[in-house]
């Protein structure tokens, strides 16, 4: 060791032990040694200064914050500073002008290594293009040689904070969160894990009413891919400052590498906070490595807030109880699945996370749901309600039939002391149904979700083969399945099952009251299906049998008896026997009101039925009152987009059309159709009905082309559903013919209307009021074609049919008179003209229609 180095050691010893700096000259006079000693002391002081010490901790060197100079950018204020870079507000001036955020590397860090890391970041960031990710526009070097990135400038607030400020509902928050998931998933697909997802990195940007979540700060992302891009870009203060959002494996990385599921966890914490305003763990109660605690459910965390829950709920536009109800179950499960300690049990990707939330939106079973059967059953039924529309009740009842089945079995066990073997078999039946519904789960082994139809087919097959020795159980299941098929419009299958049920009960000697009521039920359902197929006489036979049993066994005040009156009312109505139909429906209404009171939800349908029949009899104002009463009940009990609400809008549209308010008619019908299109399969009969009805209101507005499109679509659907012959097809065919004639093609029009007329005759018989429509329309074409004799015959027939089926002075009768006057004049049939004019005047007086305008 040189002299100078020995002298330096001595100098340092004095400094360390005695705490003072000896002057170098005190140790040596030799110029060479002195020079070397001074150099060593200088180096030591530099090293001493560079090493940390207690007194230095507060003296962290900070680069002066001068705005960087960047070609083509005007740099404004400093927005923030991370471990590696500063972020400046700036404006790009060329080639386009736009506000940007400039992320510029800190002074002093621009070594090749840091450059390399930034390069890695630049590549991964540039590969990402997603509306929910703040975009990187370009990269370059500042005037003083520092790399920079020009990024989309996000002016927004932390998503949790802004959602609270805007008091966004849970639904809206979930929608925004799904977008965040999509963005993170996009980044994952580009090989970028965020690793620091938290509210301050997920901003909500606002453009008018449009809310766009923006994930910022992918600067700490770590490339998933191996090789050159495999570089860690962790920024110190940010990650370690936010342990509350960190996944357990991030906190205990020795077990495994952090992967995309770590972001899923952080997203779970974010969703938790969006839903209930607090994080799953208190700030001190973090998931600890190794023994990470299971997260609480959002709803339980909300409950635990006690009095503080109320403002939380208010910021979600809800009351505490409502919010709790919303969270309990699926949303709780979804969040917990994301927050699983074992990442294998989490959603495998943010896309899966988002999809499960969307399943929740669609009322489908969520992947996060428990394996239990009750959940799947409930969910199945709830989804069914949406997918089968007005036939809804059948499927609701599918759930209650299941419940009723087990209860009934218990009773049966007590009453008849059934054997233990049978009890086991009964349990098998319950299991059978439950298992069937479980198949609807997206996680079921078949992979894709089974369609309702496939599910029922499986069930029907198995009922046929597995329950031979339990006739009552078997028949109930048959009825249940039959109703489900009916709800789906699968009439043949439904009919076969229900006939099987009736046969099973009849051969089983149904004599106990319960058995008889089961038989009545099967007959009733069979009548429903038969009615739907248009075989009204056959339906009436079943329906009358069911009604007779119910009246005798359950009594005249029973709801079952009322239900049969409703069915008979529907039947008479379809047969065109409106006064009788109204009588049945009014009876049903009084039974229901007596049993349940005037505001019972069940009344809504009956009110609607009475209203429509009043409408058919020309009492439009009275019809509207009942309809509005029914609509209020439906909306109250079923929500604004329920299929029954759609039916009600449909009927109000029809009333409006009769009151010649065609604008309102189209508006009502469009509401109905929108709801139906959202909820139903595209070829559901109710959609055909909606299209047909809209066409009938478009026609009198002169919108013939639009009307034609609607009718043709309706016909196509109805043919698909009903086959060749059905009154509904005939209605649409007639409507189409009319609109074709209005468009000037009389021959084509006549052809369609004739086809409709023949189909009505075939399916409804010669007395049905619908024939009056086709006769009237054909007469119009006859007049146009100068075939006055034919028009005359048809108009007389039109009048007779309407007077007979409706009322001799029904306003619709006047529709048959209107074109007749001209025909009678031109044929010089003066006596008949006078008679027609007298009848017209009588009708006008009765309905206060005022005098007829001159033609």
């Amino acid at each position: 060791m040189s002299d100078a180095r020995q002298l330096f050691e001595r100098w340092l010893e004095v400094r360390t032990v005695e705490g003072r700096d000896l002057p170098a000259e005190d140790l040596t006079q030799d110029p060479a040694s002195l020079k070397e000693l001074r150099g060593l002391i200088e180096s030591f002081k530099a090293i001493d200064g560079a090493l940390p010490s207690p007194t230095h901790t507060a003296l962290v060197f900070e680069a002066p914050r001068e705005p960087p100079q960047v070609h083509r950018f005007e740099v404004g204020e400093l927005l923030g500073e991370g471990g590696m870079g500063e972020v400046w507000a700036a404006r790009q001036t060329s080639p386009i002008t736009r506000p940007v955020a400039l992320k510029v590397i800190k002074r002093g860090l621009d070594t090749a290594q840091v450059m390399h890391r930034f390069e890695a970041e630049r590549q991964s960031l540039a590969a990402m293009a997603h509306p929910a990710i703040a975009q990187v526009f370009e990269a370059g070097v500042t005037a003083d040689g520092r790399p920079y990135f020009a990024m989309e400038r996000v002016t927004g607030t932390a998503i949790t904070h802004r959602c609270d400020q805007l008091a966004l509902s849970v639904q809206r928050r979930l929608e925004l969160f799904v977008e965040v998931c999509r963005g993170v998933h996009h980044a994952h697909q580009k090989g970028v894990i965020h690793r620091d997802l938290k509210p301050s990195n997920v901003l909500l940007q606002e453009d008018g009413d449009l809310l766009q979540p923006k994930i910022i700060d992918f600067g700490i992302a770590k490339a998933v891919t191996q090789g050159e891009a495999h570089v860690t870009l962790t920024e110190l203060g940010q990650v370690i400052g936010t342990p509350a959002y960190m996944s357990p494996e991030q906190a205990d990385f020795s077990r495994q590498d952090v992967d995309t599921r770590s972001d899923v966890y952080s997203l779970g914490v974010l969703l938790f906070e969006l839903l209930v305003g607090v994080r799953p763990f208190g700030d001190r109660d973090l998931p600890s490595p190794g023994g990470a605690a299971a997260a609480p459910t959002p709803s339980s965390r909300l409950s635990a807030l006690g009095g503080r829950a109320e403002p939380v709920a208010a910021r979600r536009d809800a009351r505490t109880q409502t919010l709790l109800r919303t969270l309990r179950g699926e949303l709780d499960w979804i969040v917990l699945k994301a927050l699983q300690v074992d990442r294998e049990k989490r959603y495998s990707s943010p896309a899966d996370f988002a999809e499960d939330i969307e399943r929740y939106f669609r009322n489908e079973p969520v992947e996060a749901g428990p394996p239990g059967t009750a959940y799947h059953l409930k969910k199945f039924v709830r989804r069914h309600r949406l997918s089968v529309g007005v036939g809804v009740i059948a499927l609701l009842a599918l759930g209650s039939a299941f419940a009723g089945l087990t209860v009934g079995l218990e009773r049966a066990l007590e009453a008849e002391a059934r054997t233990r073997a049978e009890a086991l078999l009964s349990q098998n039946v319950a299991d059978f149904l439950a298992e069937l519904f479980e198949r609807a789960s997206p996680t079921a082994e078949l992979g894709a979700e089974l369609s309702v139809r496939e599910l029922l087919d499986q069930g029907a097959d198995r009922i046929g083969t597995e329950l031979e020795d339990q006739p009552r159980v078997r028949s109930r299941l048959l009825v249940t399945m039959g109703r489900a098929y009916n709800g789906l419009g699968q009439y043949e299958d439904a009919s076969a099952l229900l006939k099987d049920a009736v046969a099973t009960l009849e051969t089983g000697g149904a004599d106990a009251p319960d058995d008889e009521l089961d038989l009545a039920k099967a007959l009733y359902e069979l009548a429903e299906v038969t009615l739907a197929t248009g075989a009204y006489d056959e339906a009436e036979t079943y329906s009358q049998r069911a009604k007779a049993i119910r009246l005798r066994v359950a009594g005249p005040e029973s709801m079952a008896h009322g239900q049969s009156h409703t069915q008979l009312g529907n039947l008479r109505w379809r047969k065109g026997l409106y006064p009788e139909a109204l009588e049945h429906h009014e009876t049903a209404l009084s039974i229901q009101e007596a049993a349940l009171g005037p505001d019972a939800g069940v009344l809504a349908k009956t009110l609607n039925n009475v209203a429509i029949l009043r409408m058919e009899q020309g009492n439009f104002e009275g019809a509207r009152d009942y309809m509005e009463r029914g609509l209020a009940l439906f909306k109250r009990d079923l929500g604004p987009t329920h299929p029954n609400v759609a039916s009600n809008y449909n009927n109000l549209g029809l009333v409006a059309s009769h009151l010649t308010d065609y604008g309102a008619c189209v508006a009502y019908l469009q509401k109905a159709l929108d709801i139906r299109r959202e909820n139903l399969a595209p070829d559901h009969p109710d959609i055909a009905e909606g299209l047909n009805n809209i066409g009938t209101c478009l026609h009198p507005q002169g919108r013939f082309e639009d009307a034609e499109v609607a009718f043709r679509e309706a016909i196509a659907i109805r043919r698909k559903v009903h086959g060749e012959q059905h009154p509904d097809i005939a209605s649409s065919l007639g409507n189409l013919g009319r609109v074709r004639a209005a468009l000037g093609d009389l021959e084509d029009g006549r052809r369609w209307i004739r086809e409709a007329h023949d189909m009505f005759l075939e399916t409804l018989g010669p007395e049905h009021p619908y024939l009056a429509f086709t006769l009237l329309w054909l007469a119009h074409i006859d007049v146009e074609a100068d075939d006055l004799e034919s028009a005359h015959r048809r108009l007389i027939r039109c009048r007779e049919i309407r007077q007979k089926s409706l009322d001799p002075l029904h306003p619709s009768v006047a529709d048959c008179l209107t074109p007749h006057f001209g025909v009678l004049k031109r044929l010089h049939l003066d006596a008949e003209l006078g008679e027609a004019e007298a009848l017209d005047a009588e009708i006008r007086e009765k309905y206060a229609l005022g005098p007829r305008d001159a033609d």
Partner: protein
Amino acid sequence: MLRSRHMPHPPDDDLQLLQEAREGSIEAVNALFAKYGQKLLSLIRLRMGPSLRRRLESQDVLQHTMLKAYERLDQFAGGGETSLMAWFGAIARNEIRDQARFFARGGRDVGRDVPLDLAVGAAHHTLRTEVSRLHLLAQARLLEQAIESLEDNHKEVILLRRFEELSFPQIGEHLGKTPDACRMLYSRAMAALTFRVRDAAPAARA
């Protein structure tokens, strides 16, 4: 055993931050971590050494250390004779030991090493002026390599004294020496470090 206090208390604002952190303020935790993070990172890197650094990211170890510290805030006797940094240092030591054991069992794929910016955050103005012609990072890496090339007892005493902020009596307990012997050891260690730096990078001299 009664020990004299040689090291300063945590500064008052640190005590304040600690108190707030204990009461659940995430901002206070962030502030503490931001303040001590760089120094702790440097310590961790040095403790890990090149071979462990090839398998583990010191940043990750830092995060785990910070997380554990956060979970155990209640266990830190703030205002006592142990500085916050010493406390962090002890947690980091355990963390590194656990990790090293894990690797000894062959538990993780290797091949990642991202050299980091030793002491740059903590570099204070003197150094900045002194080596203004050099990149701070280059200087910091030089320093890091120099420390790593020291004999074990020299390296250890520097880590305990400068990074973990232990007093000489505390260092003595660790190393089984008297405080005075530790002072001498530290003095020789710093001298050796100075020589290594000058030998490794003559250009670094001002």
